[in-house]
């Protein structure tokens, strides 16, 4: 067993970046307030001291512009990591990410490559209202040419981010703002985690809960509550939603015969729909009940605490839905 220490998810991200920047001088980070300020979430604190302002590059408030510059830099020998302060601002980068970054390799017949990473935050309940709380990762999953990563633990965050930086394709890497302080064991030794490999966060036999990002923690909490009702929940984290480890998801579904999918993005036309469809098709003859989806409510995220809290899946709502599913009720 490798030696580990406890890191927060924020620290794990920072360590991954630092290691990759040491390893490869072509790696640089750009974004708003990332150098001395270390990002508004303080995730990058200290990087500028080691790597200087040329490699930890503060930009103007020009998300489309610096994403575009990253695309061009990636094509010509650099390995940019773009920092999008709030995932809500990816709206401004869609042309550069989707019509440029995602398509350059294909349109050029495989000649040019775009080895870049876009890091963006996601997640609600910070009382930040509708323009600072969204989880829009589903959009990127819909676009061929991109890969989409949603880590749920410090261990995964570090290993997946290192893989993302070494990948020769544009990768979108979403970090839940509320998870930056979550602690977990991270090996002292270097490691990477391959894309497309789901992780069984908790083994179980009665119900499969597929969960992403912060919803993994929510699902684990719900699993504990279910224990008291003698329901054994398996919690699976796909870790990368594209590529998607269908085999593991379907395998678990076949085993437990009841499945829930939990994601913090909007439930409608979101990640839960694809995963539920894949499972409903792949495990069709083994399912005892329809796959249950839980995502964010179909409303812009409200500011007021009692309203905001009603919009996202919680341990309790996941627990209750799982219990109902297992007792045969819908």
């Amino acid at each position, binding site marked *: 067993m490798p030696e580990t220490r406890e890191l927060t998810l924020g620290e794990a991200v920072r360590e991954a970046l630092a290691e990759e920047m040491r390893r490869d001088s072509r790696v640089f980070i750009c974004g708003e307030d990332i150098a001395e300020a270390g990002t508004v979430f303080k995730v990058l604190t200290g990087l500028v001291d080691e790597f200087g302002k040329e490699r930890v590059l503060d930009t103007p408030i020009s998300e489309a512009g610096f994403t575009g510059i990253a695309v061009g830099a990636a094509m010509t020998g650099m390995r940019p990591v773009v920092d999008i302060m709030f995932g809500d601002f990816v709206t401004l980068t869609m042309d550069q990410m989707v019509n440029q970054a995602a398509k350059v390799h294909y349109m050029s017949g495989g000649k040019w490559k775009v080895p870049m990473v876009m890091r963006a935050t996601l997640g609600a309940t910070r009382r930040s*209202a509708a323009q600072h709380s969204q989880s829009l990762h589903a959009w990127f999953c819909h676009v061929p040419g991109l890969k989409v990563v949603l880590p749920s633990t410090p261990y995964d965050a570090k290993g997946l981010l290192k893989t993302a930086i070494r990948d020769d394709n544009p990768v979108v890497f979403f970090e839940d703002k509320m998870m930056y302080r979550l602690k977990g064991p991270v090996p002292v030794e270097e490691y990477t985690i391959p894309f497309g490999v789901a992780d069984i966060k908790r083994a179980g036999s009665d119900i499969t809960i597929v969960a992403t990002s912060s919803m993994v923690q929510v699902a684990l909490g719900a699993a504990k509550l279910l224990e008291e009702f003698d329901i054994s929940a398996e919690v699976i984290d796909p870790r990368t939603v594209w590529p998607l480890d269908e085999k593991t998801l379907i395998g678990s579904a076949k085993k437990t015969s009841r499945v829930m999918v939990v994601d913090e993005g909007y439930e409608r036309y979101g990640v839960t729909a694809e995963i539920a469809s894949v499972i409903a098709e792949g495990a069709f003859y083994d399912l005892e009940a329809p796959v249950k989806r839980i995502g964010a409510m179909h409303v812009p995220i409200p*500011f007021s605490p009692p309203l905001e809290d009603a*919009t996202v899946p919680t341990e309790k709502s996941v627990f209750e839905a799982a219990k109902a599913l297992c007792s045969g009720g819908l």
Partner: protein
Amino acid sequence: MTTAIDRSKTYSEIEAEQWLRMYRRMLMIRVFEEQVNDLYTRALMPGLAHLYIGEEAVAVGVCEALRQTDYITSTHRGHGHCLAKGAALDRMFAELLGKEAGYCKGKGGSMHIADPDTGNLGANAIVGGSAGIATGAAFSARRLKTDQVSVCFFGDGALGQGLLYEVMNMAALWKLPVIYVCENNLYNEYAHNSETLAGDMLARGSAFGLHAENVDGQDVRAVYRTAREIVDHVRQGAGPAFLVCQTYRFMGHHVGDINREYYRSKQEEQMWKTERDPIKVLGDWLTAQNLADRARFDQIHAEVKSEVEKAVQFAMAAPYPSPDKVGQDVYA
């Protein structure tokens, strides 16, 4: 807001009243914001807030030149714009606290105050995000021949957003009655704008065919006079304008931004606070002109304080929206 002229008064009396009204309004914003900071510090406010303290002369000077029916769009640092345009203190506080009685029924919060009654199209938490909205309102004014003008407030950081130039170009092509007011407080969050802005700030307006002007944003009289002139021209159909106001935020980027020395010096802050405080600048001038004395100022301060306090109390006591309201107002 401009009010009808009372013919029985002398010009200087009228003028004095107007300056005092602006003084009071700047003070009201100041005290409101101090109260917000206090609420945050005492953990009574959800989320964050971006204080306008130090920049009051911009919102007050510009809005004094506007009619109630004129439009504004505001920013993440928006309380000052909303209050200057006529928002009520109690419903502002209620919104900041996420209460049902707030301007947006608690759904918007600090960064999304909106109010049709005062022409406030809404604060916006996307930097530069309201440039299109403000321009569109000017488009409506022109098409519906309502004689309104539209003012888009934004910070120097928003000059990084391409949207601004797209809409400036169309505003100039179509001669829309819109004024882009750039509050140059030198910083975008934690970066001095010498690191984020190349070229010449005013030229960014004129290159797209806008009338462009610079003004001392700490001198409310200068802001008002310049804004008055521009608003009149724009209203008459002269086409859009770009007004850069040189100003400074006295506090952090938001209420939680306490240690600021890694991006700006205490001396710099001190200089602005002591020598360039817009409230003091106007107060000194009024005193020198014998248009007001200490007693008058004391009275205004006392009145404003009590209004603000009452408003906070109202907001604190007001109920939250019930959770079942969460699904309302998604669709009209």
